[in-house]
């Protein structure tokens, strides 16, 4: 009896190990295989393309350039720190000699590092996405609830949906120049221009998906709301929004992805000091390491886009009540 149990125990352990390895294989090994194959193909293709700026960057070049960018970042931070230290020493000496002396405190005017640029890009896309969301969701709800409003607004949506950010940019730049005269460093003109362009282009997926979500609420739930005589506000809060939430989130995810793509183009032309401007400057610079640095930026943009989407997915899962829905 005991022997049989022992045998069963080893069998179960083997089976569980096997299953665990299969799961590991699917989750980790297969993606790794894909990535390695891609890097391999990339290396082969890159070594066969020769441009005016040198050979097309392969994975090795991209790796070394990314290390250079990190070093430059730390060097720049060191310089800034030394500047402030020297300034502090100077000012202390001045005050020691003459307590009444007026001391000058200046900002360090060094270059923004690669990581500063990433933060700027993220900040810009967040602002643009926020504007888009607070416009798109109420608009979508109103259009979804009232067929008349939808028919009136729909032609506008359909006409402006396909417009490229590059077409909006000149108009937005001119308007921002004329109307926005703040000197607040966090809200420079280039930043506002980029954010508004992002908002204009990325509000459409949220609008359309919200309309569909609101219009496709279960008829029975609407009847429940009528029998309970819920006020419009309670109806929207308790029934419309939770019911439409899955589709609203789909819209938000699409909007964020679109927004991130639009941002890079907008930054290039509006000269907002983010990743877009980094790529543009490197291209204009035309040094031997430019292409590699641009490639590093491309991969960074891709990875950040993936992380942003994954973040939205986690938020969506947190708010999802439907056990049956599979969220990817």
């Amino acid at each position, binding site marked *: 009896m005991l022997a049989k149990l022992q045998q069963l125990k080893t069998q179960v352990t083997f089976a569980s190990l096997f299953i665990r390895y299969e799961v590991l294989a699917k989750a980790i090994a297969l993606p790794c295989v894909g990535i390695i194959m891609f890097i391999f193909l990339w290396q082969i293709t890159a070594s066969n393309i020769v441009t005016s700026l040198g050979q097309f960057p392969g994975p090795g070049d991209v790796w070394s350039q990314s290390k250079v960018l990190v070093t430059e970042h730390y060097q720049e931070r060191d310089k800034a720190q030394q500047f402030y230290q020297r300034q502090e020493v100077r000012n202390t000496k001045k005050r020691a000699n003459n307590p009444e002396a007026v001391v000058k405190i200046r900002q360090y005017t060094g270059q923004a590092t690669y990581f500063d640029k990433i933060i700027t890009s993220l900040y810009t896309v967040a602002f643009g996405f926020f504007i888009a969301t607070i416009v798109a969701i109420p608009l979508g709800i109103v259009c979804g609830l009232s067929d008349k409003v939808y028919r009136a607004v729909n032609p506008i949506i359909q006409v402006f949906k396909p417009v490229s950010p590059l077409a909006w940019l000149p108009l937005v730049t001119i308007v921002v120049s004329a109307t926005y005269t703040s000197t607040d460093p966090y809200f420079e003109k280039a930043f506002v221009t980029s954010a508004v362009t992002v908002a204009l282009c990325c509000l459409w997926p949220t609008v359309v998906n919200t309309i569909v979500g609101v219009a496709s609420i*279960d008829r*029975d*739930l609407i*009847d*429940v709301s*009528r*029998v*309970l*005589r*819920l006020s419009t506000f*309670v109806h929207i809060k*308790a*029934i419309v929004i*939770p019911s439409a939430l899955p589709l609203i989130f789909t819209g938000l995810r699409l909007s964020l992805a679109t927004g991130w793509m639009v941002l890079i183009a907008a930054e290039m032309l509006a000269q907002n000091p983010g990743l877009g401007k980094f790529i543009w400057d490197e291209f204009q610079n035309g040094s031997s390491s430019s292409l590699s640095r641009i490639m590093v930026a491309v991969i960074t943009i891709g990875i950040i886009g993936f992380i942003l989407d994954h973040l939205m997915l986690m938020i969506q899962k947190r708010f999802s*009540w*439907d*056990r*049956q829905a599979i969220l990817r």
Partner: protein
Amino acid sequence: MQNRYLEISQVSIEFPTAGEPYRALQNVNMSIQQGEFISLIGHSGCGKSTVLNIIAGLYQATEGGIILEGREVNEPGPDRAVVFQNHALLPWLTVYQNVELAVKSVFNSTKSKTEIRAWIEHNLQLVDMQHALHKLPGEISGGMKQRVGIARCLAMQPKVLLMDEPFGALDALTRAHLQDSLMEIQTQLGNTVIMITHDVDEAVLLSDRIVMMSNGPAATIGEILHVELDRPRNRLALAEDANFNAYRQQVLRFLYEKQKNPATKTAA
């Protein structure tokens, strides 16, 4: 007991379609006493749900109207609560919260917080769901969901309880349990109930009167059968009762002889 608690007075309804308007109901007349249990039975598509929706106020009759306690009603409201065929529970709210939504919208100004809480729990206890207060609809069975739907309606203290094939989506055993629960609640509370059903046995077992409808278009009331069986009714005992079977026969005769099923009509 008022004789004309709920009156359906010369109700007709026409639906606009692409071609000719479709006259679903023609001159439906009925008076219902307070505390009566009425079953509405008929072939598919004969307009039973339409009658119920008109009483509920979800549809507007093109002619005639509904008079409840002497006043005309043509808008939906918690005084004519509806139990839907597909439970219509909000899937993102728990059992407790679903009933709470109904209670709060009806009693928010008249009952205190503790009274509301006690009232919700009381109604869920009536349908035997007090053990699953904090479960989501996705976590409970079909029968349990329908019980919660019934509890939600009872919690509104409606004047009339309208049930649209409430047990149609359930298996036979669950249906039997819920029918027994419904009879118990009916005895306890004395509700006025109008129930749509396809099940002849269910109709005879539960009702005081069975209203048999003719086929659409222009459907109207065919026959009304008074079921004079003593309450409380036991299904096992009644299975052998001569009166019960006679009533069953009458309903079946109406449905299958006097009013042929539209599908067989076209074949013949």
